[in-house]
């Protein structure tokens, strides 16, 4: 039994590049719940689930959820306060 991997934003750099059309691991992201700000690479990422879930390292709230649905991606950014792209 392998433990689910808890990684960081680096691990989904390729996926996020597909979503945003640009390299975003260095982009500052502000949590919509607690206001913590840090690069996307510093966010806590869960990849062993039916999608990708990105959480705030300070308060664990969900910031971004990405699910590949057939040929497109369903991206929920509702937990993000701000992205400085």
């Amino acid at each position, binding site marked *: 039994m392998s433990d689910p991997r808890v990684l960081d934003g680096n691990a989904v750099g390729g996926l996020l590049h597909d979503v945003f059309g640009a390299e975003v691991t260095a982009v500052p992201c502000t949590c919509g719940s607690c206001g913590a700000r840090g690069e996307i690479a510093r966010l806590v990422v869960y990849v062993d689930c039916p999608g990708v*879930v990105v959480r705030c390292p300070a308060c664990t709230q*969900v910031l971004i959820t990405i699910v590949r649905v057939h040929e497109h991606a369903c991206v929920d950014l509702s937990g993000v306060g701000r992205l400085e792209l």
Partner: protein
Amino acid sequence: MGIISRGFHGRRQDGPPDRVPPGQYLTDDFPVLSAGPTPHTPLEEWTFDIRGGSEPVRWTWDELQALPSEEITKDIHCVTKWSKLDTVWQGVSVDTLLDAVEHDAGYAIAFCDGGYTTNLPIEDLTGGKAWVAYGYDGEPLEPEHGGPARLLVPHLYFWKSAKWVRGLALRDDDEPGFWEQNGYHLRGDPWLEQRYWGD
């Protein structure tokens, strides 16, 4: 479809087609899938609530343990494509719990420690199809697999078998839960391959 890599097969096993739904592969281990940190609610604080009926109903951990329970052997199917046959659980039938509540709801949302939610029609929770499970393979359910208790609804994709379940909110409408808001099918029948919206 990507560029085919000569000689690559992957590690999948196929299984008997009457037991393995379309697009699924068999696994011998029990992958742990998680969308967030594992919660650890002490049993003295743990409760299971059903809301939305004529009155809210609550069971403490001891009260849940005192309810009639059964051993359940079922195949489970994860939308990430693995299936595991003959998994053995211990738990209380959701029928037993819903019998304690007066309601005429058509749907429910399961809510959990950590904030996870998933929605189900009452039909899929009743008639001996769903349990609140607290034992797996003869042992207490481990936290990474949803312990102390998880919902178990094996006839639907396993994201409906919500880990760390703390109750059901009964509703008249089918309000999407976490994955259902993010592209996954509202119902999730593996035999109809209902993985995503519109499937």
